């Protein structure tokens, strides 16, 4: 399926219908371009903090904001992992409470913190290991593609363009 580059500033809903074709968004990873700098984790943490201020986010907020991105390094390789919006949604099927849903409007696997009880069943079935407990250990945290931003913080701040916001035709 063809992949379209995102035109920045042209905000589109996360899934939309173009001539009967569903377009889905997700962050794809160019493993060969990743230098393992970890900035994606830093910007993710800040974006998901209350203050959105680096100093406050890292030093003063409680509960501590957590990155929904994980950088793995095994020299010379590195990779930046987050939710891949699986089409077969194992986490949605496994969720005990209805907190994890596939949003029909946006096409995104969406987590409702109000309904989450932190049973970790989604963690058991996520093939990417992309879901983790938040810092307080009460509920889970996962990539939400930064709903307040045009482009997710990790993509916007990747210095080597290893992360790409894809629009995938279905």
């Amino acid at each position: 399926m063809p992949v379209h580059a995102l035109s920045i500033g042209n905000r589109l809903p996360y899934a939309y219908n173009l001539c009967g074709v569903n377009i889905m968004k997700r962050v794809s990873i160019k493993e060969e371009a990743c230098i393992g700098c970890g900035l994606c984790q830093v910007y993710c943490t800040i974006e998901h903090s209350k203050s959105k201020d680096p100093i406050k986010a890292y030093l003063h907020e409680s509960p501590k904001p957590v990155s929904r991105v994980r950088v793995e390094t095994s020299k010379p390789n590195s990779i930046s992992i987050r939710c891949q919006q699986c089409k077969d949604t194992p986490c949605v099927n496994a969720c005990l409470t209805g907190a994890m849903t596939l949003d029909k409007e946006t096409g995104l696997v969406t987590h409702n913190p109000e309904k989450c009880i932190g049973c970790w069943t989604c963690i058991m079935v996520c093939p990417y290991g992309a879901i983790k407990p938040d810092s307080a250990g009460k509920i889970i945290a996962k990539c939400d593609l930064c709903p307040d931003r045009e482009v997710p913080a990790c993509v916007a701040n990747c210095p080597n363009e290893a992360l790409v916001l894809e629009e995938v035709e279905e």
Partner: protein
Amino acid sequence: MMSKYVIIGGSVGGIGAVEAIRDVDPKGTLTVISEEKVPHYSRPMISEYVSREATLDTMKYRGDEFWKDNKVQTLTGRTATKIDFKKKQVLLDGGDKIDYEKLLIATGGKPFVPRMEGGDKEGVFTFTELSSAEQIESTLEQSKTAVVIGGGLIGVSASGALVKRGIKVTLVELKDSILNLILDKTASDMAEKVLTEAGVTVITGQTVQRILGKKDNEAAVGGVVMTDGTEIPCDLVIVAIGVIPRTDIVKETDLKLNRGIIVDRSMRTSIPDVYACGDVAEAHDFLIDGNRLLPLWPLAHLGGRVAGYNMAGKKAEYEGGTVMSSLKYFELPIIAVGNVNPEDTSDIEVLVELKPEKTVYKKILLKDNKIVGFIFLGEIDKAGILFRLLKNHVDVSTIKDSLLDEEFGILTLPEQLRKEMFVVN
């Protein structure tokens, strides 16, 4: 009355089927029969309800508008009493009949309650339905002590919930360790320690022989007598020995039945146009490559979805499940998948990491270089990656030494496998 789709049971299997049917067929008439007035709640959250960490409102698995939004005719508080497979008709209490084109049996399981002297006294409860939880809740103000019979998932959850309400709880398990169907002895001991520290008294190797009445009220629970003759006074008894499939409605029919209803990978039963899913069904287990009872919430949802798609004419295959549990008791996270207590260990390779000071325990069991079971206790973040390797029977011989590394992750996987995972689909 006629309905294109009829579903008996409105819990997670039925809900999964409704969602799948409506994905394919937005209009076909759809009827759900449920004995429970509010069927769309999360059963695993009963313990949260009893511990008052959840209310009836917050434990809803789907919103109250779910049935209406999906154009479902709900017959709640009603019992399906009989199915006439020849006439393709479901009979209801009160004599109503519904003709179906496609039928899903999602009647679930019922708690197994052994016959026991005193078992009919007030204060003896099970722990799998909202109505039991509400009854338990209403007695807690006057209760001080409880005995929970059965140290499995439900019994341990019940004990946790009651102790959080200030009840003095004794948990009784017949085998020599709690959670013995899903954990090995080491993990079980660690879980037991957490429970004990929270105030639960755990007694293993024994069970309750009979239930005693109160001195001033013989009809109400006053204590139990253990197999060794010891008496434990209590105000409440929770029976949590296990669940058995609710197959009453298909007994004495031609439907192929073992302990549960046998279904194929499409969730079809042996009778045309009749499907089953969830706790009532014996469906595919990807580890043993055969059918078995796996009364687990996530699998009921998945099975329901697959049934729903096939009922509505879209081909779908059930990928199956296996023994798979994620637990959190008093903040200790445990994920256990597959067979972690094999009887024959001659061809099993075991990888272990134990850090008791941090309450971390990891164990991976391999057979012919494939993962057949694992336990992650304390540190669970990457359990899902192992789950996928187990489910897909991936040969891990080249990465075996790295499976327990702190650095283990997607990058540890063979390049080919990694590439497949990130293909744009």
